[in-house]
C-alpha cells in the first residue's frame, strides 16, 4: 500500500513576492494558486509539496520567475477574521 506522495498545503511568504499558479516549489512541488493578501500584506497560496516536507511550519522555497523566495507552511485557515462587535 502506498499513501499519497504529495500533499496540498497552505503557505505564507516570508519574503516580498506574490506566488502564482504553476510556480515550482523547491524539492518537488508546485504552487496551485496564489495571490497577495491585503489583510496580511504578504503573498499567500496553496501548493503541492512532498509528504515528507508538508509539516506546518516547514520552510518552502518558491521559484518566483527565477528568483528563490522563502515561505512557510501554515495551518488552515490562512487568515481568520477577528469577531467584530
Amino acid at each position, binding site marked *: 500500500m502506498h499513501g499519497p506522495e504529495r500533499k496540498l498545503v497552505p503557505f505564507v511568504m516570508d519574503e*516580498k513576492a*506574490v506566488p502564482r499558479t504553476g510556480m515550482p516549489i523547491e524539492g518537488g512541488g508546485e504552487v496551485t494558486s496564489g495571490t497577495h493578501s491585503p489583510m496580511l500584506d504578504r*503573498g499567500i497560496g496553496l501548493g503541492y509539496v512532498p509528504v515528507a516536507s508538508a509539516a506546518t511550519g516547514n520552510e518552502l522555497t518558491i521559484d518566483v*520567475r527565477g*528568483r528563490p523566495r522563502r515561505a512557510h507552511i501554515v495551518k488552515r485557515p490562512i487568515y481568520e477574521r477577528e469577531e467584530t462587535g
Partner: protein
Amino acid sequence: MAAAESYPPELKYHSEHDWARIDGDEAVLGITWFAQDALGELVHYEAPDEGSTVTKDQPYGEVESVKAVSDVIAPLSGEVLEVNRKVVDEPETVNEDPYGEGWLIRIRLSEPSEVDALLDAEAYKQVVAEQ
C-alpha cells in the same frame, strides 16, 4: 488614494509607459499614470540592484498588482545609483504619486544622446490615446 490622470510636460516618455526626469547626466525613472492605472494597486516592486546597469528598451524590474505582473522597461541606459526604498516597502506609493514619491530608480546616463529619442508629453498622450 489614486492620483488623477496627468503627464507632466517637463518629463520625457517611453512608449512602454515609462517616464524619465533628466537632470544633467542623471535621470530619475518611473512608470506613467497610464501604466499604474492599467495595473491597479501595486503590491510588489522587484527592484534592480544599485550599481547594476539598465539598458534602453530592456526590462530592469517588475511591478506587480493583485491581478498582473509587468516588466518595467528602461527608457534610457545607465548605472543604477539609487532604488526608491519607499516603493519597495510601500508599492502603492506609485499609484498615489507616480511622478513624485513613486519614482522607481535614479541612474547615471551612459548614453545621454538616447534622450533625443524619447517622447514629449504631447507625443506620449497620442500613444495613450491609441491604446
